[in-house]
């Protein structure tokens, strides 16, 4: 192993496949009766060629959709699963709690469960005694008044109390690396606030944390770096807010936005007749993102281009192109055209094609769904040649959605009274 300085978890070329039997053939009878029939498996590759270096003291986040393989990755790091190929080097003491309250038994008392769970998390007997005293005094527990329930069976606890108890044990683990999977999904707001407080302390203490969550805000707040995993592949690693944006883009791109209104609009668009003389036709309209690729989704503030493909059917000297961007309610937000911009579009000979680019270097649209309507007109803008209402839809993602535009004022505060 190359002992790179400061790397505490090194994941090298990890591959992991699960064998999913088609028909669970776990009885020996079947094997005896039918020994020659091969068991059929569905091989599902959960992780492909994952490489991650996590540095000492880092708060490292992992995001990905359900089934993307992030929990499998955590379990591999924790040593619960073994990889098909590749290596995982752990350079320290790792506390492998994937979930809170592992081993909690409803038939045991709170006290007994503290000891059992503590032992599972690697406390020795003496440490456990100290831990127990601490926990009883701990504010999360006091808050839920668990103290007087400690000698009651766990089954008589509310689920919130169980979570608090489990959490207060887990955070006392004295370890180099903590692995946390979706802790914040449980508990009420007050509990979550406590969790945040504890996270802040952990972050200060420079314990290495590997954290999986769907709560993008808390990921942004705590993580030093985030890795995006999608369909078993590592998509990107980097700065949290950038990664969160990229992740949102990824989700939006693949899971086609299922806005009800959105679909409704689309149906109307398809059935709508296209008014116009037909001298020129709009073939299609595309939104091109900052990277020069056709996109359905743009990031906030990302510059973009609207590309209008057209076809000439008749010889005319010149024409005008107009674009209107509307919001989901059909309210027009901007409506530039080539005539106002004094951009001349000469006519082309019939049966030939071309495209017009409209580059928007500034994009003030706030997150949401938008439509682009395109019209081609004669040089006087007296009659439409072709009018394509809601020709294309796109989505702006990332950031807060207050109003239609992102215009940040320069704030100042002045005292007027003495």
């Amino acid at each position: 192993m190359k002992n790179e300085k400061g790397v505490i978890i090194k994941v090298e070329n990890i591959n992991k496949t699960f064998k999913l039997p088609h028909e669970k053939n776990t009885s020996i009878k079947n094997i005896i009766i039918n020994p020659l029939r091969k068991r059929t498996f569905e091989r599902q590759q959960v992780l492909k060629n994952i490489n991650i270096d996590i540095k000492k003291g880092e708060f490292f986040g992992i995001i990905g959709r359900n089934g993307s393989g992030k929990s499998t990755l955590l379990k591999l790091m924790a040593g619960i699963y073994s990889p098909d190929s590749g290596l995982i080097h752990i350079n320290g003491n790792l506390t492998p709690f994937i979930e809170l309250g592992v081993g909690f038994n409803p038939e045991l008392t709170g006290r007994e469960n503290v000891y059992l769970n503590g032992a599972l998390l690697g406390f020795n007997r003496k440490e456990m005694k100290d831990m127990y005293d601490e926990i009883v005094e701990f504010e999360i527990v006091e808050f839920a008044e668990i103290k007087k329930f400690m000698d009651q069976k766990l089954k008589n606890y509310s689920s919130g109390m169980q979570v608090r108890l489990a959490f207060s044990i887990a955070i006392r683990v004295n370890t180099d690396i903590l692995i946390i999977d979706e802790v914040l999904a449980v508990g009420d707001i007050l509990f979550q606030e406590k969790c945040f407080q504890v996270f802040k302390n952990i972050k200060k203490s420079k314990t290495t944390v590997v954290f999986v969550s769907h709560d993008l805000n808390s990921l942004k707040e705590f993580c030093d770096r985030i890795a995006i995993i999608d369909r078993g592949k590592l998509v990107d690693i980097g700065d949290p807010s950038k990664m969160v944006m990229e992740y949102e883009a990824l989700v939006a791109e693949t899971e086609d936005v299922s806005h009800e209104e959105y679909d409704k609009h689309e149906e109307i668009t398809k059935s709508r007749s296209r008014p116009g003389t037909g001298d020129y036709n709009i073939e299609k309209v595309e939104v091109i993102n900052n990277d020069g690729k056709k996109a359905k989704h743009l990031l906030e503030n990302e510059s973009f281009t609207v590309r209008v493909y057209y076809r000439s059917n008749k010889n005319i000297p010149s024409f005008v192109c107009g674009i209107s961007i509307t919001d989901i309610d059909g309210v027009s937000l901007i409506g530039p055209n080539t005539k106002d911009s004094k951009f001349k579009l000469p006519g082309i000979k019939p049966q030939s094609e071309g495209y017009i680019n409209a580059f928007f270097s500034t994009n003030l649209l706030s997150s949401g769904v938008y439509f682009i309507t395109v019209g081609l007109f004669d040089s006087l803008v007296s009659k439409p040649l072709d009018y394509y209402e809601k020709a294309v839809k796109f989505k702006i993602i990332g950031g807060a959605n207050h109003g239609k535009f992102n215009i940040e004022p320069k704030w100042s505060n002045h005292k007027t009274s003495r």
Partner: protein
Amino acid sequence: MKHIYSKENKALLSELVRTDFKLRYQGSVLGYAWSLLRPLFMFLILYLVFAVLFKVGKTIPNYPIYLLLGIVLWTFFQEMTQQSLGAIVGRGDLIRKIMIPRWLIIVSVSIGALINLGLNLVVVMIFVAISGMDLLRTSVWLPLYIIEIYVFAVGVSLILSALFVKYRDISYIWEVLLQAGFYATPILYPMSLISNINIQKIIFLNPLAQAIQGARNVFVTSSSTTIGNVWLNKFAFLIPLFIIFIFIAGGAIYFKKESKYFAENL
């Protein structure tokens, strides 16, 4: 992997054993007393049936103790293997969520069985005291036979528990095998009941038969037949020991290989 004697593993082991014990007598009025009362009543019944009613072993001195010791040692083996068999599957919730050494679960079951054996031996001693039997000086060797059975049972348990993760039929098969083994081992009947010397020889290849007869020989009466008497070779005991070695080595290798995939196969 951490060493077995590390503080953490010791603490975990003791918690696992403790939990099993607490849960076993959960909700019963007499609680832990049952772990003594249960074998006591069982032995009383066996004593009445075999020693008083059928007078099976009237040729053997101290037959009741002889019988009890055999049953205690057999029960130890049976309890340990049967509980280990389902232990990995039963602790699936832990295995899927936390990396604890998997063998620790089997060790915790075996310690539980050892504790029960201790309690049962206490009951045996009560019977010894009641019957007024003189303890043999050779009794000091008894722990060796217990260790022998323990090692054998651990080997078998490792194989069974790992197999059970994949093949759930194992529990029924093992039940039948145990029943067969109980009668193939001279527990209820004295060895002299079998007249064919060759069959006796074969019976003694079973590590349990060899160990139980050996334990009786050192603890109850030196007239008990041992493997050495039957094979007419004082080194004959090496054959069952070799069988035990195969089980413990094979069990450890198989368990280690399979334990990597417990979490996903469960």
